[in-house]
């Protein structure tokens, strides 16, 4: 019962805070550009508006086009259920095995790609091809990162990994965390992999795939990417500060963890906006360099961890 309650709290808190995170990143970026920027709560209104709008469905599409938003959002909600975002020891932590997490992320990416291809326009196909490339090249780095965590902590679910990862006693985690951050940037289509604010179809990755979606379906896809951004923000924050997560379902503990969550998303959003303002987007055809760097960070972590354990 305790664990169900914890998962429920995490689920509700994350899905409620997700639009705020996207809005906050946008606002911080606007501030870095010297602009006033929109309110961080704007995405809530945008999604509400979209839900009320009409949908225009392309004649070229089939049932897959309609399935995509549901699957993409469902896979992100699945991750919200199984990952340690606000609490440790939720009801579904046994499903938080790193292979499942990687697999479910890939499942979501695969469906998004199909949505992009369904539009029958060159833009959708271009975005789809790029997203697919990124999703497949990010896989080795992600698995190697999780393998490092697993070796250091002796656990296989992300929940147990984070609960047992003590960064001070295991320096092998440092390159792994660097790799995790790079993976997180790639997974969320942020700089330097993709420019989330671009209006040029030729430079888009994520945005190009959702060009054909409108109304509620668009809201679902944008919401899914907001939730995904929140998941990864919290994951990166939690690996550094695992003590901020609740372990039992008392009212005080829950309130504290929610307060921590707000602090964490604000700090991460600020840092993400800072990063995006400091660096430029990489050329897409140099993406394998980025992925190789991420992979070698992860591999370095893995090697350090193995040496550390063997010695």
């Amino acid at each position: 019962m305790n664990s169900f309650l914890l998962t429920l709290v995490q689920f509700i808190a994350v899905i409620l805070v997700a639009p705020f995170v996207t809005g906050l990143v946008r606002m911080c970026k606007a501030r870095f550009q010297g602009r006033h920027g929109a309110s961080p709560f704007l995405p809530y209104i945008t999604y509400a508006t979209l839900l009320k709008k009409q949908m225009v469905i392309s004649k070229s599409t089939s049932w897959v086009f309609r399935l995509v938003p549901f699957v993409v959002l469902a896979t992100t909600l699945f991750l919200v259920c199984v990952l340690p975002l606000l609490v440790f020891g939720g009801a579904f932590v046994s499903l938080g095995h790193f292979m499942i997490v990687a697999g479910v992320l890939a499942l979501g990416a695969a469906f998004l790609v199909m949505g992009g291809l369904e539009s029958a326009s060159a833009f959708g196909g271009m975005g789809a091809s790029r997203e697919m490339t990124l999703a497949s090249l990010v896989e080795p780095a992600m698995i190697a990162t999780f393998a490092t965590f697993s070796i250091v902590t002796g656990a296989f679910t992300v929940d147990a990994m984070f609960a047992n990862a003590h960064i001070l006693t295991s320096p092998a985690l440092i390159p792994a965390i660097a790799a995790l951050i790079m993976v997180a940037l790639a997974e969320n289509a942020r700089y330097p992999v993709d420019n989330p604010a671009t209006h040029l179809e030729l430079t888009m990755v994520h945005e190009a795939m959702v060009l054909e979606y409108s109304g509620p379906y668009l809201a679902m896809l944008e919401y899914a990417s907001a939730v995904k951004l929140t998941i990864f923000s919290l994951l990166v924050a939690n690996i550094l500060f695992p003590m901020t997560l609740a372990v039992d379902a008392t009212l005080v503990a829950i309130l504290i963890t929610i307060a921590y969550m707000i602090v964490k998303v604000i700090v991460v959003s600020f840092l993400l906006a800072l990063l995006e303002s400091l660096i430029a987007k990489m050329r897409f055809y140099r993406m394998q360099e980025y992925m190789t760097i991420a992979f070698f960070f992860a591999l370095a972590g893995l090697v350090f961890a193995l040496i550390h354990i063997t010695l």
Partner: protein
Amino acid sequence: MSFPKLLKRLFLGPRVTEKQESFLKTDKEFEAVGAELKSIVQSLYGGRSLRIRAVDGGSTNAEENELTALSNAYYDIDRFGLSFVASPRHADMVWVTGCVTRNLERAVKTTYEAAPEPCIVVAIGDGACTGGIWKDSYAVVGALENVIPVHIKIPGDPPTPTQILRGVLNALKQSSSKS
């Protein structure tokens, strides 16, 4: 300038986006229009998020310059909840500039038809409103009205960003009175 200082200035210091009180006299109007727009969009959509698809129907690019100015640091229409988007599928409004040339007639039409309803059409600049100096040329269709229904016209060659925002406000007034 050191980095923390820069951050401090960016976040806490004076912004390029002018505040109402420090605004130039003529642009007080702009702020007022913006505020009113905000409230109208709020009542219309139950919120204040409005996404714009801009279409060039064969303009001289003078209007485009003004549209670009709308999202710069000085005018920053983002703060009113307006933003430009990459696809008419995402749009709540379609902004058309220029006398519609025959070559772009279809483009303007399909953009309007591709946008989900409700969709507000705004003709920006003299070209889009009346056909401008090209009115009876064989190469242009003329005013935007000849192609798609127009909800509001913003005259001027080109209209200033303030005028554009005021025009949008009128568009919303019009469409809210209709419904």
